[in-house]
């Protein structure tokens, strides 16, 4: 049976005896008949936020760490030490602290996680262009056809990927390797943390048969109940149904269930496409018509919008203002610029002009700003404005303020108008 050492990446045609790698003595061997034939994978980081924090603050390495929002919030991520004590994601913080009073509770630092996430993504994209991120800490990879390029089958590349993540970023991940996305995702969850699980074609049906149908993505509590009422609890139960009966009982979902029951899933791994627009909006506590207040909101929204665009390296050529009047009627005004922008100050000024153009005194219950017709940031904000010579200086000041915030935190410097 083909095998692979996850520590030294040595490959074997036949699994070595006594379950240890003859080269490096590691016990972390993985053996599977189809190991070198499968190419669709799911990579899931282990306790991602907590791992990043532990890497950034080594003194926390041996302590239980919980990432979450304050005493009244919920657990977003718990490290494996805290998990041993029973702490779980989405658990109210007070309960988590009752289980594990000595836990270090940290507020999430999403910017930092996004930064590490993009480093992980870069490592994955070095292996294949077919990387489909599901969130900051997990992604599908399709490594079909890359073996010749990398001179190694996907399994070796994946073991190398998690090894590199541990060495360079200090975070571990679990790999699920199979022949489609559905099974790859199930596999990555089998052996966490630092796992590597394989579901081959031959064993697909047997593997699924005893497992509960709630593993199917999209089957929530309600769906589970509906299935249970039909006497379907496991994949084996599901497989006994004809596709016609499933369709009759569950509608559109029926066909999908029928195929997933057999471990069939032909969704391709799709690299995420560029977003179409970036927008932010806010609903007021009370309807307002006050210009000063509206402009203050516009500024904060423009800034958020610009921050997101800058983080993604994007810029927009169209600026849109959305207003919802007290009577719920929606007003949309947009304008196309001669040059794309990602500068909050420009977005704000244009949004303000659009607010003038709307010629509606309000009151409004919602205001929103967005940019669309997106393109790369390198084409943005390159030419100055003859009629507004200060614009270039304001843009320069904004970039400088961005640099300060990147170094000293988001509140290190704010504009007075954001306090309105």
């Amino acid at each position, binding site marked *: 049976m083909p095998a692979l050492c996850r520590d030294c990446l040595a490959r074997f045609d036949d699994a070595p005896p006594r379950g240890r790698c003859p080269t490096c003595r590691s016990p972390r061997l993985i053996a599977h008949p189809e190991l070198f034939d499968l190419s669709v994978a799911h990579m899931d980081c282990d306790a991602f936020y907590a791992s990043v924090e532990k890497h950034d603050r080594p003194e926390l390495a041996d302590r239980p760490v919980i990432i979450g929002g304050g005493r009244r919030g919920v657990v977003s991520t718990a490290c494996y030490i805290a998990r041993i004590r029973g702490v779980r994601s989405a658990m109210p913080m007070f309960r988590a602290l009752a289980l594990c009073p000595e836990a270090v509770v940290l507020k999430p630092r999403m910017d930092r996680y996004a930064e590490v996430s993009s480093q992980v993504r870069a490592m994955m994209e070095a292996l294949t262009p077919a990387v489909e991120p599901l969130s900051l800490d997990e992604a599908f990879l399709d490594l079909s056809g890359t073996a010749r390029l990398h001179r190694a089958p996907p399994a070796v590349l994946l073991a190398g990927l998690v090894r590199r993540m541990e060495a360079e970023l200090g975070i571990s991940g679990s790999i699920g390797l199979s022949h489609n996305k559905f099974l790859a995702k199930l596999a990555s969850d089998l052996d966490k943390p630092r796992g590597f699980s394989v579901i081959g074609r031959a064993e697909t049906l047997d593997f699924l048969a005893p497992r509960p149908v709630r593993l199917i993505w999209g089957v929530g509590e309600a769906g589970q109940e509906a299935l249970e009422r039909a006497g379907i609890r496991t994949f084996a139960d599901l497989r006994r149904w004809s596709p016609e009966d499933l369709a009759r009982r569950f509608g559109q979902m029926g066909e999908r269930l029928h195929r997933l029951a057999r471990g069939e899933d032909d969704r391709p791994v799709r690299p995420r496409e560029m977003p179409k627009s970036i927008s932010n909006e806010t609903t007021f506590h009370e309807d307002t018509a006050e210009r000063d207040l509206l402009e203050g909101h516009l500024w904060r929204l423009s800034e958020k919008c610009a921050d997101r665009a800058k983080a993604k390296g994007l810029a927009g050529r169209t600026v849109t203002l959305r207003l919802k009047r007290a009577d719920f009627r929606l007003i949309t005004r947009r304008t196309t610029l001669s*040059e794309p922008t990602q500068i909050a100050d420009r977005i704000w000024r244009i949004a303000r002009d659009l607010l003038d153009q709307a010629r509606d005194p309000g009151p409004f219950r919602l205001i929103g700003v967005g940019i669309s017709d997106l393109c790369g940031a390198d084409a943005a904000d390159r030419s100055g404005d003859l009629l507004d010579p200060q614009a270039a200086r304001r843009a320069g000041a904004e970039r400088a303020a961005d640099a300060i915030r990147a170094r000293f935190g988001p509140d290190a410097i704010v504009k007075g108008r954001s306090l309105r």
Partner: protein
Amino acid sequence: MKLSIERAALLKAVGQAQSVVERRNTIPILANVLIEAEGEGVSLRATDLDIEVVDRAPARVERPGATTVSAVTLHEIVRKLPDGALVQLSDDGAAGRLTVQAGRSTFHLATLPKEDFPVMASSEYATNFTVPAPVLRRLFDKSKFAISNEETRYYLNGVYMHVARGEGGPVLRCVATDGHRLARIDADLPAGAEAMPGVIVPRKTVGELRKLLEDDEAQIAVSVSETKVRFATPGITLTSKVIDGTFPDYSRVIPTANPRRLEVDAAEFARAVDRVATVSSERSRAVKMKLDEDRLVLSVNAPDTGAAEEELAVAYSDDVLEIGFNAKYLLEIASQVDRENAVFLFNSSGDPTLMREGNDTSAVYVVMPMRV
């Protein structure tokens, strides 16, 4: 109403009318052209409520009268009629139909009552003067490319026509800008224009006006008030509201002391810019100009698609300068030059650059550089 008219004359008149008519119209009467037959001719009138055009053509009027029909349909019909045809228009009033007849073709078009047609209120024009067509043509042709499309800066969506003080005395001046480039074109001030109020002539009006200016011999009667402008030839009268806004003080954005002078053959320059810009797939293509001792190197570097470089022999004797521009803007201003060499005056890579034809200051262009 009953009249007959030559196809060519009718086609010209109805062509002008239908171009004023707004394509997407919610008010039916605005899609129509008002046909008025009287005396020795017929007049066709169309409006979008901001612009009104009246075109007069000689016709044999058998029975005076007036009606309105769809401008686009009438135009299509006349366009498809054979050359040299004599067209007869007649309406019976009662049935609400206009009959168009030429040769063996007969058309019946639905009409709307002439009373419903919104005729633009006549106003008092404080200033009236006459300009030869080629002069107006130059003023608007050389400035209109710089008109802004940004609706939020509506006061830039037209050409600012006003009286200004030029180097040799008062001039009739047209200025347009979109914030990235600016065109300032001067002409001798016509007699009677001295007290003209400055007006912003909307983009669409500029387009319609152009059709009045083809004939080199024509004299255009211009009338200006605070809110309206009128251009008239013996056959056509174009009346337009002007943009209700304040044109920004452009004089402070025109650099006056840029020290570095480049002189280059405009056509050669434009062709080179066009060639190097080919490799860039971006919508706003940036071209880098590197200037050094009688040498200009144009280059484009687009990481995704490629790079290009071209060298031109030029007259330049100042310090080495590297400056980037939007290729489209460079092409547009270079194509305004038709007699002499293009002269560029630079300050630094971040400051506005001035371009003119030789030493002629009656047409100057300012273009903002781009980071490259």
